[in-house]
């Protein structure tokens, strides 16, 4: 459904963040993108919805080629790609409801959105989503009154109300505590399954990634070093992605998870 062909991004400073990345994501697949800081993970997902303009190569979403679109057509395609951010990126001074409804901006005209007169169906959907993530009672709170985990849930609602086909998720758990991180990852993966969404999740926490996704992509210096199931992440593989380190502890947690799951 999503296909990247020879995607290259070279920044003005001359840093090559992406070196001819080829990647195909089938419908409904949740994949994790791991790699050291500066490997180009953020750049990769920002090149997909063109928050960062790729230098060359192609991005195809369904049968639409995103890289060649004019700005108005690009806006229409962006509605099909929900994005979730590391620091939540909620508009701090707007209410939770306004933040969720801002996911509908691509569908609603300027004056309606400016006067906050969203269609009733959008408001219904917003309440449904807030209820689904357990925040229905928070709708009138200002976004900056919420805790990190709650903010990220609002961020998830904002992405989902776009009715997207693909979720682009940039370090969803990097600012959260371990327990909330798991809850958020679980929520994202559950919602993807419910709605049949594909997702690309940038993530630092290898163990967490292994726990939840079906496929892992390892990125190093802007090139794909690993592409396979989470079980394939052996110490040797992690060494090629991140460099020399003792990986036993990381792998061990994974084994335990697997045993747990097998026991259930």
């Amino acid at each position, binding site marked *: 459904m999503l296909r990247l062909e020879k995607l290259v991004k070279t920044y003005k400073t001359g840093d090559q963040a992406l070196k001819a990345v080829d990647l195909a994501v089938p419908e409904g697949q949740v994949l994790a993108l791991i790699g050291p800081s500066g490997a180009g993970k953020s750049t990769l997902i920002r090149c997909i919805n063109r928050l960062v303009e790729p230098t060359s190569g192609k991005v195809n979403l369904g049968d639409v080629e995103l890289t060649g679109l004019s700005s108005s057509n690009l806006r*229409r395609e962006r509605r099909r790609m929900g994005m979730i951010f590391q620091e939540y990126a909620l508009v701090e001074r707007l209410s939770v409801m306004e933040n969720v409804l801002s996911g509908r901006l691509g569908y609603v005209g300027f004056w309606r959105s400016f006067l906050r007169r969203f269609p009733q169906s959008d408001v219904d959907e917003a309440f449904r989503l807030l209820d689904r993530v357990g925040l229905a009672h928070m709708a009138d709170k200002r976004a900056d009154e919420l805790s990190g985990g709650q903010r990220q849930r609002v961020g998830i609602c904002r992405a989902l109300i776009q009715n997207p086909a693909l979720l682009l998720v940039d370090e969803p758990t990097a600012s959260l505590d371990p327990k909330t991180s798991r809850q958020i990852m679980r929520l994202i993966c559950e919602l993807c399954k419910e709605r049949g969404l594909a997702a690309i999740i940038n993530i630092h926490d290898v163990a967490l990634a292994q726990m939840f996704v079906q496929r892992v992509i390892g990125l190093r210096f802007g090139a794909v070093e690993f592409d396979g199931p989470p079980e394939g992440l052996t110490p040797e593989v992690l060494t090629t992605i991140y460099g020399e380190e003792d990986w036993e502890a990381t792998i061990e947690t994974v084994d335990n998870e697997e045993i747990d799951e097998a026991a259930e």
Partner: protein
Amino acid sequence: MPMQDVKGQKIWQRRTGRESLGHWVIWLIGVAIFAYCWQQISSATTWFFVWDAPRIADDIWTRATPPRWEYISQLGKPIWDTLNIATLGTIFSLILAVPVAFLAARNTTPSLLLIRPIALLIIVSTRSINSLIWALLLIAIIGPGVFAGVIAIAIRSIGFCAKLLYEAIEEIDQTQVEAIIATGASRWQVMAYGIVPQILPAFAGIAVFRWDINIRESTVLGLVGAGGIGLQLSSSLNVLAWPQVSLILLVILAAVVISEWVSAKVRGAII
């Protein structure tokens, strides 16, 4: 090098010997310039007037007190004009300053090379000319009266408001804007949802701050004929009616104190 190695012990000093000598010389030059200027000013001053000043001040004080309280009946309209000049001038200037600020901010300007310099030029040129001088020019163009004062205040305030506002725009959190762009929002929607909520507190603060300044500025505009209480002040000064002057000064003081109080309240409510 401030770091020295003396017998195996590392000694750190803030400056090397050469640097501290340089600093000493700069201070010496500064003091010498100050002494020279002092002497120049001193020889150009007619000291008789200076020694005489306390006696004259005392003389004016006795003439000006008590204020002529019954004159207050004629000050209601002028102080109302002054408040209107300040308020309308501030509103007009904000209407003009908002687009200028968006054109001047690095992250919202449509063109860094052409439009941003023009916007910056508007900011600098309106800021650099005093409102009294704007008023003089405008009186020549549109005649004396309150309207000239309003326009003078409005023009003078554009630069101030636009400069503070564009700095606020440049300091917004860009990830919130990115998030709105990623939803497929149009350019105007990105402004309304991503940028405006972030700069609203700054905008309100700037507006009341400038209104506060404008009340003080508009009190003197009447001196050149642009309406308001300054008109009364200048005519009273011209006929040496000191009790009236002291009452006018008291009224101005009261107006400024009230405006300070209002703006402090408003700013407190917003932030």
